């Protein structure tokens, strides 16, 4: 049976320098997907790259070889010198963990700002190019579609999504309370995360005309600048830029604060004490919290902003929990579908379905014909069961024959659709989630860490 593997790095595991290098390399003309024919062990491949993550999702028969191939692909594609140890930044999720991780990513639970809506679009983009390159087949096809519907479910059934949108809304409202009119204010974007883009878009829509982008990698800055009609400044000139800026949206994902109390304090005199508003979206924070103590300087980090919209911590946690519950449920559904791709369970569920129909019909007939004696009843039972057996004989023989081939999954999936067995799988999954919760779900726990 083939394995689903997800290999990548995100803002939690890799320092920003490494991630940006990867993201830039991956934004080149050459998509790593075109290398698939040269990979012997990888069957299907999807490549996702955003400013905060780089991930390869693939299926392979032999796990170790597949992972090694993808790692090599990552290294050669990016042109990373071998002196940089990649392994410590990477995570590798297998099978269910990979599925769960993908669902988390799609529903924006793994994002820097939980609930930001852009990741789903990026994931769809990644899927689209995989379709163009014909690198997805049945398993990843279904997995990706499933992840989109999971994201949709999470979005509609929890308030995770409104959380991020209102964060940028709250930021604009606060800016209004500080500056009055924000149209003539100057916004500086430091770093270029999804959430920063969302906030920038919001500020633009509210009439801000002057925007500057500072990013460690110039390409990304130029790209953003083009989108927001902004100027770019070199990252090293950040402090000088503070003189002319009123609102700073920061999301670099650096490990240490990039602006200290001293940096900002000394700039305040030069800017004649005009108020300065920092929106620090990064986790860990980009702006030293002490900066908030400086007169006329206001620093809001992501927690503060979420506090503004009265989304208290408890509420957010419980929203995240219910989102995770949805994801667990969907993960198990997917697991059951994967299982069904083996011949035996498929055959079993075809038989089960037929048997279930037979029993229902028998019950109905017997209740309508109360005069039937035991002999007649027995005859009808034998009759119906032999009809089913004979009818199913050829399909089952066919499935058993295909069970030895590599392409069996296609036939199994087709069978599931033909007999409409997927719905049944989903119903069972919901119940299974509950029971597995009681067992404390070892694999899900591991994924959380």
């Amino acid at each position, binding site marked *: 049976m083939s394995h689903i593997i997800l290999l990548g790095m995100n803002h939690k595991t890799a320092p920003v320098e490494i991630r940006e290098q990867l993201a830039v390399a991956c934004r080149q003309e050459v998509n790593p997907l075109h290398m698939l024919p040269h990979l012997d062990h990888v069957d299907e491949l999807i490549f996702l790259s955003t400013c905060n993550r780089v991930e390869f999702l693939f299926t392979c028969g032999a796990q170790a070889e597949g992972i090694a191939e993808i790692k090599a692909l990552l290294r050669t594609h990016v042109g990373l010198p071998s002196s940089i140890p990649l392994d410590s930044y990477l995570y590798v999720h297998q099978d269910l963990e990979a599925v769960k991780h993908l669902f988390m990513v799609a529903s924006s639970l793994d994002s820097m700002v939980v609930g930001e809506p852009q990741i789903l679009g990026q994931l769809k983009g990644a899927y689209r190019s995989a379709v163009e390159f014909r690198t997805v087949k049945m398993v990843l096809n279904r997995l990706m579609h499933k992840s989109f519907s999971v994201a949709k479910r999470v979005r509609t059934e929890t308030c995770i999504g409104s959380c991020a949108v209102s964060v940028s809304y709250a930021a604009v409202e*606060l800016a*209004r*309370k*500080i*500056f*009055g*009119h924000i149209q003539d204010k100057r916004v500086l974007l430091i770093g270029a995360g999804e959430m920063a883009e969302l906030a920038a878009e919001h500020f633009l829509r509210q009439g801000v005309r002057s925007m500057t982008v500072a990013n460690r990698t110039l390409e990304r800055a130029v790209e953003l600048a083009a989108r927001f009609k902004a100027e770019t400044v070199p990252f090293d000139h950040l402090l000088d830029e503070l003189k002319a800026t009123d609102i700073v949206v920061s999301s670099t994902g650096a490990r240490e604060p990039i602006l200290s109390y001293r940096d900002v304090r000394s700039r305040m*005199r030069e*800017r*004649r*004490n*005009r*108020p300065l508003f920092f929106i620090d979206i990064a986790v860990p924070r980009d702006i030293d919290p002490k900066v*908030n103590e400086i*007169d*006329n300087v*206001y620093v*809001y980090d992501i927690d*503060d902003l979420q*506090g*503004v919209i009265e989304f208290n911590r408890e509420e957010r946690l419980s929203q995240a929990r219910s989102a995770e519950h949805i994801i667990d449920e969907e993960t198990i559904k997917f697991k059951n579908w994967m299982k069904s791709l083996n011949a035996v369970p498929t055959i079993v569920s075809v038989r089960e379905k037929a048997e279930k129909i037979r029993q229902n019909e028998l019950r109905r007939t017997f209740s309508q014909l109360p005069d039937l004696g035991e002999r007649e009843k027995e005859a009808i039972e034998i009759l119906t069961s032999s009809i089913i057996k004979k009818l199913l004989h050829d399909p089952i023989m066919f499935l058993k024959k295909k069970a030895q081939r590599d392409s069996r999954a296609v036939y199994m999936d087709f069978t599931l659709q033909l007999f409409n067995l997927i719905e049944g799988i989903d119903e069972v999954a919901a119940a299974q989630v509950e029971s597995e919760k009681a067992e404390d779900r070892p694999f899900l726990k591991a994924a959380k860490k």
Partner: protein
Amino acid sequence: MESLFLVIATLCYLCGTVGYLIYLLKDREVLHRIAWTILLVGAIFHGAALVVRGVGTGHFPLTSIREAISLFAWVFVVTYLVVQLKLQLRILGSFVSPLAVIFMLSSRLLPTQAILAKESFRSGWLIAHVTSIFLANALFAMLFSLGIMYLLQERRIKKKNFGLLYERLPSLDRIDSIANVCLMSGFPLMTAGLITGFVYATMIWRSPWNWDPKEVLSVVTWMIYAILVHERLAVGWRGRRAAWLAILGFSATIITFVLANLLLTGHHSVISGNLYG
């Protein structure tokens, strides 16, 4: 007649204040319009009372500390009404109108003993002195209210602790720029008031400076505002510190204006009584 008008005026100021306090809690524009109109009616009655008093006694109604405060309260309310028309910062009324009531009521409690001879109002210098000082003080009282508004709002934004007031108070920048208007128009008036005062003093006592406590306090107050103006123009001082300094300045103004007249001895004082003996 005069006292009836004063009672009506006081009641109007009280009702206006209540209206503005409700407006602080409930964002209804009609509340503001009603309260503003009531204050206007109060100011008309108050003005009528002052005129009646002036005509009755045959001099400018400023011979006692009570009259002075009453006149100041009137100037203050009229200044507010005009500023409101010009700048449209409605919530300012909620902070200004209670001050008007305080001034009005305190004028009832203060002694009526004369501090200035009637004849002195023949001098144009004294009238110029009093008018500009009163206008300056009215603007500084406004500045004080704005300072309090600023500090309340600033604290909410800094401490990230929001409440009803956060919603109702305007943006920091708005408060600050209106405070700037008040300061920049009040300060030249105060300067002019001091200069005319010195000219008048030279004419009466043959010396511009007599170490009168009120003179000293006035200069101290002037210096506080001078620092504020200088820092604003030179270093762009604003915000919290400017607000605190405005509050300090107005406290000094109150001390100069009221306490010096009541407690200390000098030409402006009640206790020294006979000034021109």
